[in-house]
Structures are given as C-alpha cells and as structure tokens.
C-alpha cells in the first residue's frame, strides 16, 4: 500500500511540476543519476524493492518466483495483455529489437518478464505464442485473477480492469509503463510508452555494464 501511495504521489508531483513552470525543484539523487547517465527512464523519488510474488511460468507451467528468478539481473517487468492493440506489442517489439542490437553481455544480463493481466484470455499457450513473436527469451507469467491482482499491488501499479466492451471482445486498462530493476534488486526507473529502441539499447547496455551507482 505504501508503494502505491509513493507511485500515486509521484504522478501528482509530476502533474504539479507541469503546471508550475516558474520554479525549478532541485533534483533528487535518483533524478541526478538519470540526468548524469543520460537515461531515458523516469526516476523514482526513492528506490522500491523488487515485488515479491509467485506466478506461473507460461512456457513451463512451473511456479516462477519473481525475486528469486531475476536476482542479479537487470529486469524489465511489464503488466500487459496479449490482446492489447497498441502499447504492449510496441513496447515489447522495441525492447526485443534493442536487445537484438545489443552486445551478448547485455542480452545475457537482462530478463524481460511479461505478466498477462487478462486472466481469461492470457492463457499460458497464448502468452507463450504471443511473446514468441517478439523474443523467445522473454518470460511470460500467468495466474488466477487473485494472484494477478496481488502481483500488481506488490509491484505498485494500478490494478488492470476491463475498460470497454465491444462486440466480440473487450479492452483492458493497465499500467502502460515498464519497471526496470537493477542488479541491486530495486527499481529506480520506470519507462513510459514512447521509449525509442536506441534509448532502450543505451540504457540496458549501460545498466548491465555499470549497475546503478551506489550512493
């Protein structure tokens, strides 16, 4: 809950900033790192710990302990759904292309974890097939409605919900940003939609190589 409040306040702060314009608030240490390294992600006021949840690995059917499986990796965590018409496929396609252009060390140092939040349609088979369009190394996770809600709350993202229904389907409103966890198992950054492939490649290469600077 605390994490949700932090993220919520971040959104409010961001809105306030855009309105004020006249005074410039001093950069937080996180923002200073982002500015110094030229990262494309947005900084959190303070780091958040990696969310502790266990879902099912869509490819193997085995339980996937997020903290355990991704420990020591630069990890991208994204909550989306496989019927998403725009943001999800574009995000994942751009990350896949960026990794494709990156060095072997970078590719080996990054884990991309996609959580399918649309439980009725995001079956393990569907998630695995869909992720295969982008990169077969991407990890797809599925779970029950309750497990998915718990995972989203743990990660401090707004819980996804059915947004609008139309004949033959529906759309799901879900968090549009991707959390990036560095090797210290904390998130310092999140990435909204609209991050270019070149920016992903730059940030991932740098963070795998250097890690998040310790204060």
């Amino acid at each position, binding site marked *: 809950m605390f994490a949700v409040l932090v993220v919520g306040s971040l959104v409010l702060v961001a809105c306030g900033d855009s309105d004020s314009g006249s005074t410039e608030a001093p950069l937080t240490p996180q923002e200073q790192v982002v500015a110094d390294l030229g990262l494309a992600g947005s900084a959190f006021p303070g780091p958040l710990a990696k969310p502790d949840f266990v879902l099912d690995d869509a490819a193997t059917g085995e339980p996937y302990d997020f903290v355990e499986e991704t420990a020591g990796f630069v990890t991208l965590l994204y909550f989306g759904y496989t019927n998403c*018409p*725009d943001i999800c*496929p*574009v995000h994942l*396609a*751009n990350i*896949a*292309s*960026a990794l*494709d*252009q990156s060095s072997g060390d970078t590719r080996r140092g990054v884990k991309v974890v996609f959580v399918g939040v649309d439980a009725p349609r995001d079956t393990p088979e569907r998630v695995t097939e869909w992720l295969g*369009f982008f990169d077969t190394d991407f990890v797809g996770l599925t779970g029950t409605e309750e497990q998915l809600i718990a995972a989203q709350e743990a990660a401090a993202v707004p819980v996804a919900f059915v947004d609008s229904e139309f004949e033959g389907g529906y759309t799901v409103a879900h968090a549009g940003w991707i959390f990036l966890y560095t090797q210290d198992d904390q998130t310092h950054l999140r990435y909204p*939609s*609209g991050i*270019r*492939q*070149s920016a992903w*490649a730059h940030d991932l290469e740098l963070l795998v190589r250097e890690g998040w600077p310790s204060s």
Partner: protein
Amino acid sequence: MTNVGWWCSAQTGPWSWTPQFYPGIWAAMIALLVGYVYAIRRIGPAKVAAGEPVVTRSQVTSFATGYVLLWIATDWPLGVLGAGYLLTAHMIQYILYSLIVAPLLIRGTPPWMRELVWGAPGMGWARYLVDRPFLAFVAFNAVLAVTHLPFVADTLKPIQFGSMAMDVLWLMAGLIFWSAIGAFDQEGDMSTANARRLVYVLGITVLPTIPGAFFVFSEFPLYTTFEFATRAFSDLSAKDDQVIAGLLMWMGTMPILMARLAMAFFAWSATESRRAGQI
C-alpha cells in the same frame, strides 16, 4: 467501410484491413478527372489546328494509367500503410509518385494542356522551374531530401494536412522534374540536348542512394512514426521494414530510371548517327 478522416495520415490504432473512406482523396481524384475531361472536350478544340487531334489515344492511355496508379498510391490501403505503418509502403508511394505517376501524367497531357496548367494563375513559380531543368533537378532532389528528414516526416505524417502536403509535394516535384526534360528540346543542337537529358536523368539515380544507405545501415529505426506503429505484419519488425525500404530505394528505383536512361541514351545516339550521316 469506416471513415477515419479526409486524408490518409499516421494513426495510433492497430492496422486493420477494413477499408477506409477518405473523402478528400476521392474529391481530389474526381476533380482531376473532371478537369482532364473538361479540358479535352471544351478547351482543347480551340487550342489545336483544324484536323489535329485534341488528344491522342496513347496520351489518354498514359494519363489513365498514371491516374489509376496515383489513386492506388494515395488511398487506402497503400496510403494508410505508408502514412503510418510501414516505411516500405511509404517508399513504394514515393517511387510511384515521383518516378511512375508523374511521367505518365506528363506523357498523357497534350502540349496545349501542359501550357494551360503551367501558365495558370499562381503557377508562375512552377513554370519558372519547368523552363530551367537545372533548378527543376535541384527542386526534385530537395523535396526528396527534406521530406525524408526524420523530423519533417514525423511531424507531417500524423497530421492530415501534413500528410497531404507530402503527397502533393512529391507529385508536384515529379511533374516539374519530368516536364523540365522537355526544356532540353528548345536547345538548337539536339545532340547536346540529348546528352544533357542523359546526365539529367542519370543525376537522380545518385541521390536516392543516400537516404537508402541510411535506411539500410542505421542501427535503429530512424522514424518514430514507424517505430511506434503497431506492426501491420507481425513478422516484420520496424528495423527490417526500414532495411527493405532502403533496398527498395536503391534497387526499386533503378529499373525505372535505367529504362528512362536507356530512352535518353538511344535518342542521343540516334541524333549523333543522323549527324554523322549528314557529315
């Protein structure tokens, strides 16, 4: 069939094969056809000498082919794909407009009609360029270069007016470029005129290789429009699409330009042979 605007522009939604109706494109195409037919029926007879045809069958055929290709290049689906989903489609549009449609329309327009168009009020600037092949060449290549700058393309493509402006610019640049070839005929020495025509056409085989090289060798997509577009074909990434577009710019334009070059070369060769015979 759905209606999403009056001119094809980059869209944020996923690509759909459901036909879309763009009234602006239909209006422009109908106006072009009506104008052509009206000019032939009402204006042409007073412009040609008695007994001369107002328009030849070959000119009508050429115009009709150019007209159909123009509509295909502008309207759904190619127009929508090129505006916001696939750089390859954008490149096909460019090649169609500049190198196929424009010369076909020029060839399909009788000389008296061309005079009418270039001499129309507000067309003085175009007439100025048509009479000066070197400037027409510069203008054609400037349009190619400027409209392919990522900032320019990414700014114009999501706006209907911007997207239309790009289409019109490409077509106008092509019409002026291919019309200006006729200016060489005004030179007294046909041999020199044909040689210059040869160099003129050869010139535009060079410049497209520059953006083509950027497309092929760039590490990442150059245009945000196509980078953030939902994939029209799931197997075709934005990067692969860009490489194909670059290759198309290199290879796709070559056969067309080579054919045109061959025409210019044989014309020059024939003139030289005639002159040698006279000597």
